[in-house]
């Protein structure tokens, strides 16, 4: 899919490479959009510039009432951070609605902006929050309001030599509150049919300022200015919410596509806005975002960026650790991690079911994160530590595998009858075992969320959920186990 893979380690080096390669190269980090596009021949490129090693860009900070997101801040980073949840709730909600855990741990908010699909969930709240985009190039920096950054369907104002260094917006709080709502055709791994973000300023009960952004109803994310103006000075009674919903729909110019007709989008949009406003009126805007969201990552926040001391920069040969064994892949620089594992490491337990990050059959652990290996450029394994299904058992305890060489979850999958055709099972286990590493006693909703990126066509999931619960009970310390029904 690409010929040359460059992996700079500083922003300065990156900007120099961008200046050199310009429109002959594309930037990649989480890969969740870029690898899908490349596999479909969208915006093809000879050269990938991997910025995932620029640890300095992975941050979420609040300074002087401004929230700053580094270019490498992931969806999970936003969802997990207090700043994201308390000072940028609509963005955190949108991040939580993206794809599935394996995508949220990889995908970056900046990457969504650059993809600039009208259905990219995070752009909508950023527009409502009044975000600006800081673009860096070798020639210096410039800052654009988000509305000027977005030009059309998958078109932005970014120049080929530029990098999104930071996204920033005024923090919520002090009378400003917001909410994000999305309608998809299923509850995970769903592209928005419509989505909306509302940010309101309040003077007591009355609305003193309003920004409403609408997604998937026009070539770019748009504002619902009529509804915004209507709300000023009003309190959020039922009729006001309803009329604002109708006014917001007036601003939309949706199209018919495979996910829905224009007419349906308008109706659903009105309902989303009406309910979002009602929720804000009730002060219930944060409901639904779990206090401790499932992340499927157990590495520290900078774990993906901090390399083991002494590891050499990537220079063509991928030197990595797979299931505790060092490996060197000489011919995998142009491959996905999935293909490298299957072809160069001859580890075929990791499966391909879709090659677009939808089914989760290729889930492995990359430096502590559960990732879909079909959307990871293999060179990102350089200097990293990988665990595949073949190495899962050895992670079960510090002393190595127990249960006759199985991870407890592998054993409960067998006992619970959770395995039918088995093709989804390696990915399912890697996601499930990561959940148990992250939280030893998950409830059923958390298990469902953790496995929402892993499709199974045989079992209906019931026995898989049972198996995770049984393993959690087994893994619980003996003192806590008494209270767990088995």
């Amino acid at each position: 899919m690409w010929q040359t893979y460059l992996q700079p380690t500083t922003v300065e080096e990156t900007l120099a490479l961008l200046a050199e390669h310009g429109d002959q190269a594309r930037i990649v980090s989480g890969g969740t959009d870029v690898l899908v596009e490349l596999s479909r021949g969208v915006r093809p490129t000879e050269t990938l510039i991997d910025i995932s090693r620029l640890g300095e860009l992975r941050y979420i900070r609040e300074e002087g009432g401004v929230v700053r997101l580094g270019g490498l801040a992931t969806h999970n980073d936003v969802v997990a951070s207090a700043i994201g949840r308390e000072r940028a709730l609509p963005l955190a909600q949108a991040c939580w609605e993206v794809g599935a855990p394996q995508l949220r741990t990889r995908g970056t908010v900046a990457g969504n902006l650059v993809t600039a699909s009208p259905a990219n969930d995070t752009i909508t709240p950023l527009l409502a929050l009044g975000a600006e985009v800081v673009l860096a190039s070798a020639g210096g920096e410039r800052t654009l309001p988000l509305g000027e950054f977005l030009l059309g369907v998958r078109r932005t104002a970014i120049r080929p030599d530029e990098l999104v260094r930071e996204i920033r917006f005024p923090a919520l709080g002090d009378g400003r509150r917001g909410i994000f709502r999305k309608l998809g055709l299923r509850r995970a791994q769903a592209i928005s049919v419509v989505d909306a973000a509302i940010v309101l300023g309040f003077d007591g009960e009355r609305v003193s300022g309003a920004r409403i952004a609408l997604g998937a109803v026009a070539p770019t994310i748009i504002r619902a200015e009529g509804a915004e103006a209507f709300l000023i000075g009003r309190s959020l009674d039922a009729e006001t919410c309803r009329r604002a919903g109708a006014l917001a729909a007036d601003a939309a110019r949706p199209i018919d596509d495979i996910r829905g007709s224009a007419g349906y989008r308008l109706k659903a949009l009105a309902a989303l806005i009406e309910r979002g406003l009602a929720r804000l009126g009730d002060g219930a805007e944060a409901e639904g975002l779990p206090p401790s969201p499932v992340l499927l990552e157990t590495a520290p926040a900078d774990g993906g960026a901090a390399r083991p001391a002494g590891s050499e920069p990537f220079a063509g040969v991928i030197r990595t650790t797979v299931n505790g064994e060092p490996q060197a892949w000489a011919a995998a620089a142009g491959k996905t991690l999935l293909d490298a594992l299957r072809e160069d490491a001859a580890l075929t337990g990791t499966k391909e079911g879709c090659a677009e990050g939808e089914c989760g059959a290729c889930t492995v652990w990359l430096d502590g994160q559960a990732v879909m290996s079909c959307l990871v450029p293999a060179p990102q394994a350089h200097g990293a530590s990988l665990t595949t299904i073949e190495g899962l058992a050895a992670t079960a305890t510090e002393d190595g595998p127990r249960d006759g060489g199985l991870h407890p979850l592998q054993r409960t999958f067998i006992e619970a009858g959770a395995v039918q055709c088995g093709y989804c099972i390696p990915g399912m286990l890697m996601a499930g075992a990561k959940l148990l590493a992250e939280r030893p006693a998950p409830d059923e909703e958390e298990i469902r969320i953790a496995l929402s990126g892993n499709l199974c066509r045989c079992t209906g999931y019931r026995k898989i959920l049972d198996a995770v619960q049984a393993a959690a009970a087994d893994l619980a310390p003996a003192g806590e186990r008494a209270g767990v029904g088995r």
Partner: protein
Amino acid sequence: MTRSAVVGQPLPRHDALGKVTGATTYPADLVRPGMLHLKAVFAGRPHARLLAIDARAALALPGVVAVLTAADVPHNAYGLIEPDQPVLCGDVVRFEGDKVAVVVAESAASAATAAALVRVEYAALPAVTDPELALAADAPLVHAERESNLLLHVPIRKGDVAAGFAAADVVLEGEFTTAWQEHAFLQPEAGIAWVDDGERLIVETAGQWLHEDRRQIAAVLGLPEERVVVRYAAIGGAFGGREDLSVQAPLALAAWKLRRPVAMVWSREESIVGHHKRHPIRVRCRWGATKSGQITAVEADVLADGGAYASTSAEVVKVAALFATGCYQVPNVAVDGRAVYTNNVPAGAFRGFGAPQAQFAAEVMVTRLAHALGLDPAELRRRNLYHEGSLEPTGHPLPAGVSARPVFERCLEEAARRGWRVADGGWRGDEPEAGSAATNGTACNLPAAARHLRRGVGFACGIKNLGYSFGFPEQATATVELAGRGEVERTTVRVGAADVGQGSHLALRQIAADALEVDPALIEMVCDDSELAPNAGSASASRLTYMAGRAVHDAAVEALAKYRNSDDARVEATVQFRPATTTALDPETGAGVPNYCYGYASQAVEVEVDEGTGQVRVAAVISVHDVGRAINRQQVEGQIEGCLAQAVGYALMEELRVAEGRILTPYLSTYLLPTTLDMPPEIVPVILELADPHGPFGARGVAEMPLVPLLPAIAAAIHDACGVWLSQQPFTPERVLAALARRDAG
């Protein structure tokens, strides 16, 4: 047959260990260095004449070994029932997934690059993509050598429908449509093939019937069947989608012609474009009933879009026509089933095989009739459900073991236990509990939205044949070998039955263990090689436990008797089990013996409908099945739960979008399957064991039955919640909202 220690036990699967450790090899895991890689060149258009294929640029690419075309195929037609599908098209392409060439190269990447370089010149032909229009006199012909696009017309006539409607107090009409469903087994098609030292062609892949794959491959190459060996690696799901050949024929062709090991691995997109789907079926029907609750007449017109090739359309439309009256005894019946060729993706086998589409119409009509008559829909069913000795529309009594009524009564009991009850002529669920909305989907989990939420309860019944129908040859053969001096030391069961994930090998092992009184773990099962295992028929029609199970059971009994009555250190018994005979349907009246066994199901569901967005959430499903005898209860539950996931997807979200013969949703990101979060929080499988008179230990099949009632049960629940009937599957939020808008407008 006596109860014993092994049958009924929830023993773990022997294949599970390899599957949880990643050691199990599926077809794509068999690719080895040195193999040649195949890449198909797809037509990518619904209907065109092939003018020329220029492969020079492709062949000039380094690593490209050959580009195979129709001229390379010895007998260029295959098919399960009627060989009308070319391996590689030579003159005309009839759907976008038709293959015109296969590139063979040293690497998968070279093959893919070269495939894009094959220049194919076409002259577009008018495409017919609407089954109604395909029947017009001036419609373009999908197969020019046929007189029309009609693939099969199956009439069923019983009694006098005019008199039946005249006797009815209420006559209702309905029209129902369903769309294609994609199998979406998690493992896309793949396989390898080579020619061994004995000049035999070995094809190792995943399918549903070793010996039928072998027959078709041998026919394409013009080889005697003994020269072809088909082996199955682990099969990553099937659901009917691996019944038709896919990669097998190109693999066989390339390996045989080039005498080198070859591999072919399809992408998800190739899989979705390349293999058949569940039939879209349109049912127009009239049902009549008297005030006393007797259904007097049913008239139905059943039209199935068979797509470009015959596949199993003829059988599917017969099943759909047979079940146009559901599981009800109706004295006067006039059904016309038709399957037609179009330039759409071929339609063929998919779990349920015509039964879900037909009974969507039948079950909704029965509930509507009850409402029109002011009767409890449960009571109307009670008065008309099949019972022992009921006559089918084909005029023959049902095979013994009719359990429609006990299954339905149990379903009502389970529903009542949950507090669902009859009130105001309809069924009512529990009142929503305070705060219950908090577990709902994104758009409906706010308290302010609670007023948009409507709860409803619905139920439906279902019937599905087990095994082959309408006189299709039905048999299963198994061999049991016992060896040992004095006591049995080695037990081998040979039975060519595919384990597509449903656990058939475990069920057969348990049956053998019980019949032989040996530890099931000590039995060697030989099931995946067409040479080493005899033909047990396909993993389809919910038939393996019953058919292969009987063959294994009977062979085991015979082998054990031989062993006990002789001094031989090694005995062997082979049994071919044949069930009661079925017959072809009379071409004028449909009279005949359609099936030898049926499975019966009933389901009750609770849904929550968001009247603002049209989203439907299934909160709970009760699914009751008579399985005769659960050989392994855990595996039976797995079949019910898994089938329900496909049924929930079918009912609510799985929508293959097709325009002008082109599939618009060829990815798992656009063809949506239910995730963990989309499944009902509560699924209650209820397993009844009302022994089948012929099945092994009384067992009968269950694999398809949960798919039959769910669509109409959800339709009834949506009606209960909101007062609207949905008649177009799937019930997408958009369709629900449109129905609500029509309700509010008028």
